[in-house]
Each structure stands twice: as structure tokens, then as C-alpha cells.
């Protein structure tokens, strides 16, 4: 079931270490337990695939890893730091500098150009205006979209949107990329290309990638595969 308990190689501390993670959603109908006692370790230089049936809590897990959602129970350390105890400010800073997030619905800012979409993470990170274009272009080049820099995001095809979302997650050079089905709308070639970039990125040994996917081909290219079922990893 899980290979997560494997100890890290010597000299390679965990980037992400999650223990006993439980998430319950409370709504009018009652309490839904989506994640039960999940343990997960990620070392830099890895691509982790998360698989599992629809509704099994994959997105929820990713949100928690991105500090977009607080867990009900459990601990989460990132590069040795307990990030769950951070205040709102600290969490925003964490998202800004450490995480690149690709949403399942590949949300782009509406009525904005591709450039503007990629600029926001840099704006929030306090990047100089002069150095932004180079970074944005570099990120777009990685997803083969440098010819669409000034296009309106609304007019892109589904696959192009997804690639912009990936580029946006890359642009800040984060420590971890959390991608929720980044290839869901892409054809085989483009999917493989995205995986190529992910692999290029982790090759530096500094960064890790967590991908949620339904595609076994994608999963096959990852270092490890985790399957979520009934809230258990």
C-alpha cells in the first residue's frame, strides 16, 4: 500500500513530512471524513503521484499540503519547519515562496493576459518589475507557450490554459509543485512534455513535485505512486 515509511537516504532530509493527517468536512448533512491518518514523506528530487478514485480526497490532500486548507488532525513539517502553526501571514508567505499550485480546474484570472497571470506570483513575491519578463518568458517556454504571452487567458484552449497554470506554478521557482491533474486536458505529447519539465525541475535535487493523476502513463514516470482509497493512503 504505502512506501512512505521508507526512511530517507542519508543526508537527504524530508522536504515534506506529514503524519496522522485527518480531514473532516462538516456540513449540514453531518461529518464526512475524507482523509484518515494519512502519512506522507517527500524528499527533494522526487515526483510523487497520488492516484485514487474520484472523491477519494486527492484534491483535499493537495490543498492541505499547499496550506490552502487546515487539516482536522495531524502534523505537517516542511523542510523541518512546523508549518501548521504559522499564522495567516506566515502561511501566505509559505505559499508565496515555497509552493507552486496547479488547480484541478486550472483557474486563470479572467480578462487578463497570460503575462498578467504569471506576473501575480512575482508581484506578491516582491520581484523587481524589470526582472519579471525574463522569468515569465522562461516559464512559458518550458510549457511551449512563449508565443501566447500577451493573449487573453479567456481565449486559450483548455490544454493551453492548463499549461499556463503549470507555468504559473513554476514561475516563482518553488520548493514544491503541487499539481492537481495538470495533464487532465492535455494530449499524450503535451502531457509527456509537462512530465519532462517536472523531471527537469527535480533534477536539480532542490525541488519536489506532487502530482494528482488518473493517467497510469503519467504515474509510471513518477518516483513513487500513492493511492488514496477510503481516506487511507
Amino acid at each position, binding site marked *: 500500500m504505502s512506501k512512505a515509511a521508507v526512511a530517507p537516504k542519508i543526508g537527504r532530509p524530508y522536504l515534506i513530512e506529514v503524519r496522522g493527517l485527518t480531514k473532516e468536512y462538516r456540513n449540514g448533512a453531518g461529518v464526512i471524513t475524507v482523509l484518515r491518518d494519512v502519512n506522507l514523506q517527500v524528499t527533494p528530487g522526487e515526483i510523487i503521484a497520488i492516484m485514487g478514485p474520484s472523491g477519494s480526497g486527492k484534491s483535499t490532500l493537495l490543498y492541505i499540503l499547499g496550506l490552502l*486548507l487546515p487539516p482536522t488532525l495531524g502534523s505537517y513539517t516542511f523542510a523541518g519547519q512546523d508549518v501548521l502553526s504559522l499564522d*495567516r501571514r506566515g502561511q501566505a508567505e509559505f505559499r508565496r515562496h515555497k509552493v507552486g499550485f496547479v488547480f484541478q480546474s486550472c*483557474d486563470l484570472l479572467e480578462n487578463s493576459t497570460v503575462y498578467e497571470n504569471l506576473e501575480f506570483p512575482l508581484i*506578491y513575491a516582491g520581484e523587481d518589475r524589470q526582472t519579471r519578463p525574463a522569468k515569465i518568458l522562461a516559464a512559458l517556454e518550458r510549457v511551449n507557450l512563449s508565443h501566447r504571452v500577451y493573449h487573453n487567458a479567456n481565449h486559450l484552449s483548455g490544454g493551453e490554459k492548463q499549461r499556463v497554470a503549470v507555468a504559473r506554478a513554476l514561475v516563482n521557482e518553488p520548493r514544491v509543485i503541487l499539481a492537481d491533474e495538470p495533464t487532465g486536458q492535455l494530449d499524450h505529447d503535451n502531457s509527456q512534455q509537462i512530465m519532462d519539465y517536472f523531471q527537469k525541475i527535480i533534477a536539480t535535487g532542490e525541488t519536489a513535485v506532487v502530482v494528482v493523476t488518473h493517467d497510469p502513463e503519467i504515474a509510471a514516470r513518477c518516483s513513487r505512486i500513492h493511492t488514496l482509497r477510503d481516506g487511507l493512503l
Partner: protein
Amino acid sequence: MRLTDLLRVSMRQVLRHRRRYLGVVLAIAFGTAGVITIITMGRQFKYNINQDLDLLGKVTVIRFRFDNEKASRFQWFRPEAAAAVSRLPGVQAVSLLGAHKAPVVWRDQRQSLTVFGVDEFFWEVNNYKPLNGALIGPEAVAGRQRVCVVGADQAEKLFGKHDVAGLFLEIHYDLYRIIGVLEEAVPDSLSQAVFVPLTTFQDRLPGAALPATLFVRCHTWDDVPFLAANVPKVVQSLQEAENLQVDVRWWVWNRTVRIAWWVEFFVHMAVGVTLVLGGVGVWNIMMAAVRSRTREIGLKKAMGAEDHDIMAQFLTESLCLSLGAAILGVAAGRLAVEIVGQVMGTRPPESLFFISVGLSLLFALVIGVGAGLYPSLQASRMNVVEATRYE
């Protein structure tokens, strides 16, 4: 988030959604233009109405008169007292008037008529025009000329016609050249009288030929009560002043003020309502924006925006809206002020204009912050995932 980025991003947002914001912007711009016009031109406007209302009764002219029949000694207005009065706030013009019975002779007709000694301001203060010829002007007064103006009725009586300029009239054994005839729409006592320069009057007529009447023309009717109360004090501080009477047509004044109050009330209401609606509009549109842009908010938070980044962005957008609208309103207001000034034939008072511009911008600032604060606070407190999952 840097200020330049904040301004750029917010301005972009407002410009891209300008159609959504157009109504609110126009409402605020319209209200602002109204406020600027009212503040800048209000006084001029009232002043013009005053002049038009003169025919109905001189609401803004106050007459101060020494009742010399009761006085133990003859009382009259000293020039320095008149000068001090003319410097009081709200005074448009002052005029001194002396009256004396004197024998007036034309050919074989000899009668005792009222002769008025007037300064050059008398006509302006009372808004009198000549029927023909000219009225007594500053040169005639300064030069102590022997010239006179005849009332229309008296001209008819003495000469059988109105066109008498250039003829000579004997007043108290001196010959005076007639320079003009006063219009007919004046009180009887004036239409029957003869007018000479006040200086000549004091020089040449016998006895107490001195100005015992002072006319004060107020800028608008609002100045009347203050001046009616304070002119006597000023006069008394500079000279002896026994039995000084104040004549104001209070009943006309009351009615005028009441009508004016209602007119003003409605104009101010209209402008106020427009501005309040503008404020409510900004509030409403920002609330709607926060609701419809939940995804955007969540997304930006996921990209690392802090609460205060989101708040600053919405607040700046709301400020861009209201300040942009106000600037538009200032431009429109300037235009309106110029047009009103042209129509009324006056230059707009610049200092009032700048005060009104300052007030408008301040108001826009208050609307922008006031109406934008709550929505932006809401936006900033939004939970990230709920925001991104919002449909």
C-alpha cells in the same frame, strides 16, 4: 505588494470593467459637478436673482436714516463712517443721500422742490437707470459740477417733455445743466425731484445740506439681518448717531428668504441624493465585485497574496472608482461654472472653485474608503479553498 503594482493592477481592473462601473461613476461625477457649481456660483447666482427681484421691492437694500425732526442737533453721516460701512462683509455698495427743499426756476415757473444730493453710487445701489441722457457719475461728484438729473414726472411738469438734457435749470439761484432724466419706474417722491452731485449740494445749498440717509446694498438677502444690526454699531463707533432709523422691508425679505430657502433646499437635496446614491452604488458594486470575484481572490491567495494585499487591492479599486468619478466631476463642474459665469456675465470666483474642488476630492476619498472598506475586508478574510471552489 508594491504601491506601483497595486495602482497598476487596480486601475487595470477598473478600466477593464468600466462598463459595469459606468453608472456609479456618472452619478458621482454628476453630483460632484453640481456641488462645485453650487459652491462656486451660488453667491453670484443669488446676487443676480436679487437684481432681478428689485422690481418687486428692494429686499437687499437697507436704508439708514437720521430722523432729524426728533433730534436735538442735526445728524448726518460722516464720510469715514460710510467708508467703514462699505468695508463690512456682505456689503455690495453704499450710497449717501442728502435732501433739501429749494426754489427751482424754469423760465417763469418757480416752485419749491425736493433737491437730492447724491453720490455716484446712488443709482447702482437702487438699480436705477436713466430714461434718457446720463446720471450723475464720479466726475460730476469729484468735480463738484453744477449738473442735475430730473425725475421723469417733474420733467413732464416743468418742460412738458422728457427729452430735456442740455437745458439749464435754476436751483437755489445757481444755474445747473440738465444731463439726464431718471426712469419712470421709481417712487413718486423721486420722480418729482431733482438730483445734484452730493458735493455740489453741500457747497451750494443753504443750511443743513448734508447727507442724512445712507443706503446699503447687501450682496445677497442672507447678509441683510447682519448688516441691519451692525451698520448702526459701526456708525455709532465713529460719530455721534442719535435717532438712527433702520428701514428694511422685512415682510418682502421674509418671503424672499422663504422661497429661496425652498429652492436651495431642493437643489441641495438633489445633489445630496445623487452623491449618497453614488456612495451606495460604490458600496453595492464593490460587494458584488467581491462576490463575483471569489475565485480570483482564492487564486491570488494561493499565489501567495496576503490578506492585506487583497484588501488593499479592493480598497484601491474602490478609491480609483470614486476619485476617478470625482475628477470627471471636477472637469464637468469647471465647464458648468464657466457656462454659468458666461450666462451671468461674471468671472467665477477662483478661490471658491478650489475650495469646492478640495471638498469634492475629500468627499470622494470618504466614499471610496467608506464604501470600499467593508467589501474589501470581507474579501481579505475569505478562506482560500472555499473561494477557489466557489461557482
